[in-house]
């Protein structure tokens, strides 16, 4: 393997939690609302892809516990198909990192630094991420451990402070057209839930592998709970307006007015968001870089971190012409793509592996 560092299963869980929730809180409610209407808050419960992704990642890891996915896919499917898979995979992860980065950039530019060039906003974060990724999986893991309490505290603080303004009538009537709208609304969320299969890439570094299963399921539950809470609060505050905003949760933070002193806490929200986006991009970028390095047959991934960082910054800009285009892509074409790469392809690999009787010994 290309990485010598080790993480604990708790760190794995925290990394994955932070690699999924921040963007989901931010963009998902706006998109989901257009399908689910007032049943928006139910959508995170239909976490079908998560139910598939977690066992899939664990199962794939069990086939070759100490091999990275690049090595494992080569052993499972043979040299050429493995090579194709690994190549497609890191390109896909680069693309995903680009989308996440752009989401972050659009958010920062749109909400706070309206006159700063996008390139500066993207570049500065990518630079910091590159430093962290160069530090290895251990550093990213420790970051996740350090940031998770801060992230949760700030998130809960915002939820807590907004309680006086919530209107329970916004969620009425419950399930007027059955469960179908909330199911449709959860379609876009499947991107985030399928991201759980990124665990496959991190599992080989986990030192206490026996606890990884428990940790992943707890993480999965935590993600559902967080999304449930954030969707619910957003809905109760904004009601029918939810769909009209790109970042509904930001409006929440803006809305807070406590004793006329705690007002305009969106900076607080930005703090959460940057912390979250940082860990998220670190995890995705880490998978991209190590995947690319292994695919190219390098012995060390560190030399390509900065070149890849430059590429990532450019991807962040190339991904879409503007924010609307990207949101549209997320709501439409990204869903099948993500499901294919996060779920379908790993599932096929797993099936091949099992049919060949691998991972029994």
């Amino acid at each position, binding site marked *: 393997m290309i990485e010598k560092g080790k993480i604990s299963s708790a760190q794995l869980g925290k990394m994955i939690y932070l690699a999924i929730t921040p963007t989901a809180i931010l963009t998902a409610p706006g998109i989901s609302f257009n399908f689910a209407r007032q049943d928006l808050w139910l959508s995170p419960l239909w976490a079908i892809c998560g139910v598939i992704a977690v066992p899939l990642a664990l199962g794939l890891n069990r086939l070759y516990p100490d091999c990275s996915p690049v090595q494992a896919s080569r052993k499972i499917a043979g040299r050429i198909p493995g090579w194709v898979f690994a190549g497609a995979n890191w390109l896909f992860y680069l693309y995903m990192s680009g989308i996440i980065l752009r989401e972050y950039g659009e958010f920062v530019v749109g909400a706070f630094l309206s006159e700063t060039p996008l390139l*500066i*906003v993207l570049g*500065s974060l990518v630079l910091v991420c590159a430093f962290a990724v160069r530090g290895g999986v251990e550093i990213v893991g*420790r970051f996740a451990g350090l940031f998770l309490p801060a992230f949760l505290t700030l998130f809960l603080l915002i939820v807590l402070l907004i309680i006086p303004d919530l209107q329970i009538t916004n969620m009425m009537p419950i399930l007027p057209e059955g469960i179908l709208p909330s199911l449709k609304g959860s379609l876009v969320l499947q991107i985030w839930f399928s991201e759980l299969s990124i665990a496959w890439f991190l599992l080989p570094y986990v030192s206490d592998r026996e606890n990884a299963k428990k940790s992943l399921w707890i993480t999965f539950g935590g993600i559902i709970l967080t999304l449930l809470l954030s969707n619910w609060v957003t809905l109760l505050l904004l009601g029918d307006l939810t769909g009209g905003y790109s970042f509904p949760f930001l409006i929440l933070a803006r809305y807070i007015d406590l004793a006329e002193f705690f007002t305009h806490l969106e900076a607080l929200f930005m703090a959460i968001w940057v912390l979250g986006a940082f860990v998220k991009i670190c995890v995705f970028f880490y998978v991209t870089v190590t995947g690319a390095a292994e695919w190219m047959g390098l012995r060390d991934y560190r030399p390509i971190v900065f070149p890849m960082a430059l590429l990532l910054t450019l991807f962040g800009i190339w991904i879409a012409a503007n924010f609307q285009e990207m949101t549209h892509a997320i709501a439409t074409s990204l869903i099948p793509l993500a499901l294919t790469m996060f779920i379908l392809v790993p599932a096929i690999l797993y099936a091949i592996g099992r049919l060949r009787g691998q991972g029994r010994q």
Partner: protein
Amino acid sequence: MKLSRHLRDNVRRLRAVYSDCSDVIFHELRIGGHTPAMLVFIEGMIMLEELDQQVIAPLRDGPGPGPSLEDVRSRTAVASIRTVSTLNELLDEIADGHPVLLVDGLEAALVYGLSHWEQRSVEEPTAESVLRGPREGFIESLRTNIAMLRRKIRSPKLKVITFRLGSQSRTPIAVIYMEGAAAPALVREVLSRLNRIEITDVLETAYIEEWIEDNRFSPFPQLLSTERPDVAASYLVEGHVVIMVEGTPTVLVAPATFFSLLQTPEDYYERYVVGTAIRWLRYFFFAISLLGPSLYVAVVTFHQEMIPTTLMLTMARSREQIPFTALMEAFLMETMFEALREAGARLPKQIGSAVSIVGALVIGQAAISAGIVSAPMVMVVAITGIASFMAPRYTIGIPIRLLRFPIMFLAGMMGLLGVILGVIAILIHLLQLRSFGVPYMSPLAPIQKHGLKDVLFRAPRWNLNRRS
């Protein structure tokens, strides 16, 4: 080089080595009025009276010839007598202030432990004062310092390894640890790193500190330095290793973590509730000392909406006259403040107070009324200043003072986002840092549950060492 049988050869060699050293005394005597012998010592480093009475007199007045080594040794009433047989050992002993006796016909020399030189009395260390707790501090004598530790921990498990470092200064160094508490691997690592040092002179612990650190480019201290025996002793029983150098009251403790540098001995001497509260106050102001001016710059430049309206109006009014941007203002004031502080620390006490008065007037009242800086800015700088004085150890305060400036710049360029990115960048560095293999940010990252009891709280003593 071995010593010769003949006194004349040895003396000739010694005189050649100590040519032009007028402080080295060669005192000739005849044992029992017969056998020639030579006492060599350095003036001012020995107990002259004792030497006269206990060594010279009995040897001179004793019975006649035929002195064997044992014979000479038993004639003198000195508790510590050693024999050395090589010239290099002999030179080290003389340099340590031990009188040595060379006797004709003997291939070894006798070393009398009668060294004594002027030293400062034990005082309270000014940089680490406490309201409650012992008031003694280490001094410049290695022997006294070790004794001070031994007086605190009387167990034979307290091990002291001494050796010399520095090809020229030949400075005695002591590595001290508790057997059973300190990991043997740690002690080995400390010793091997010390042995790898290629240095001519060791005049202070800082000389070796830079050699044995894990990361030589980090602004953060990776070893804890203290002048307090009680601090050193508390780290020893926790399994750390203490490194002492002759000639300096500052000792090093390895490994050090970020949070150990933010603790004071008083956290443990006060009641635990108070200790915990004060510790959190310190963490908070530590963050302020890093981020205070940056947050102000970011909010004033980019996030005015965060300030309540009435306060915003007051601030806008005071900033109306100011020709500089908030960033420029902050740079100006912070640089001025650092300069004042440095000037105050270096000047003699009498002038120092004058500097602080003038400085307070210049960067405070006058600057505001002249319309160069705004009043809120002065407040922010003052609060930051106070916060930075709360850093319990000077060594951890310095990197923070230094890093304040780049973060201020980021805040001026990108607002809160810049501040957050800057903090992340610093954290990346801190998370990668290790001190003798121990992660610098432990026990917070990676999390070690029982260690958190002594970081997030100051757990009561009856609960502190329970590892469950």
